[in-house]
């Protein structure tokens, strides 16, 4: 691979663009293709398949031995609430490969020194998400259990078909939330997608343990997501 190809690939990845690298195994030359651009006719089918499945593999085309590698954007995690659980998530999630952002309008919570290494947005979710909409490759964890802060981003995440929507709160808190969402006109099958109580049931107790349970649940949702239809596209 030429250094220029490596640089182009790394630039695409930094910009959250999906990329397929086609390497010619006879001489090591590589070409980088970005999703949404046009591809050479003889490679178009294999490149499109790679983008859709996310699966790398070798293929012989017109007598040339090629390798198709796929780089889909890393999944994002947006946490609502600059709370204790989010502090632990901010440590774990980047190691597991997630780009993480934390949104909390309460400036007493959202301080840079509590959250080093992740993006911290001390503003209302309504305002942040208007500028940076959620997408299918984003997980949303609502962690404030304050309806004024959590409800809007939960609805936005369901609408954007985020691969994971989790909400902190007891069964009773969640029952009240379900009722509010229903009254607001959110469809029952959308409401059923909310993971609550949040996190896999591993008996987590401390904020850090709950963060592990939440991250594990997010990974499960990502790896077992429905790849049918548009869901598999970056």
């Amino acid at each position: 691979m030429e250094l220029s190809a490596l640089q182009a690939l790394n630039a695409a990845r930094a910009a959250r663009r999906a990329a397929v690298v086609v390497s010619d195994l006879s001489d090591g030359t590589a070409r980088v293709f970005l999703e949404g651009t046009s591809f050479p006719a003889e490679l178009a089918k294999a490149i499109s398949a790679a983008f859709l499945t996310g699966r790398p593999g070798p293929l012989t085309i017109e007598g040339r031995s090629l390798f198709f590698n796929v780089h889909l954007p890393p999944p994002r995690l947006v946490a609502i609430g600059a709370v204790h659980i989010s502090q632990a998530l901010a440590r774990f999630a980047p190691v597991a490969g997630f780009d993480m952002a934390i949104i909390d309008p309460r400036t007493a919570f959202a301080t840079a020194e509590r959250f080093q290494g992740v993006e911290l947005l001390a503003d209302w979710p309504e305002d942040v998400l208007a500028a940076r909409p959620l997408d299918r490759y984003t997980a949303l964890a609502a962690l404030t259990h304050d309806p004024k802060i959590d409800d809007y981003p939960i609805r936005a995440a369901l609408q954007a078909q985020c691969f994971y929507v989790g909400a902190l709160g007891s069964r009773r808190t969640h029952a009240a939330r379900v009722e509010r969402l229903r009254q607001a006109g959110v469809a029952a099958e959308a409401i059923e997608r909310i993971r609550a109580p949040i996190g896999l049931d591993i008996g987590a107790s401390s904020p850090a343990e709950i963060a592990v349970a939440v991250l594990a649940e997010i990974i499960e949702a990502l790896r077992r997501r429905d790849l049918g239809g548009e869901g598999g596209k970056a």
Partner: protein
Amino acid sequence: MPSETDVLEPLKVAEEWCGEGRAVALATVIETWGSAPRPAGSHLVVDSEGNFQGSVSGGCVEGAVIAEAADVIASGKPKMLEFGVADETAWRVGLSCGGRIRVYVEPIDG
């Protein structure tokens, strides 16, 4: 700001090393059969001093790949390697999990 992921990310490391003027080879898992610890597309980056980042097998064959990478850097020619229990060198660098993998090792050409 570099996150912890960056540190573990072999393609970024490869670009950095090239920028520092180091000679670099990139190893890529091309194909796997049976139970193999790292999927196709996984990368390991190696410099001419044997420094490496990333993984192609979870530790079983990295040593052999790093040794071959030195040849690839010296010759400037890519090479395909195969490892597995059926391999005659299995006693030395085989995959204890019983899988087989093909690993492509290529120089990064500045």
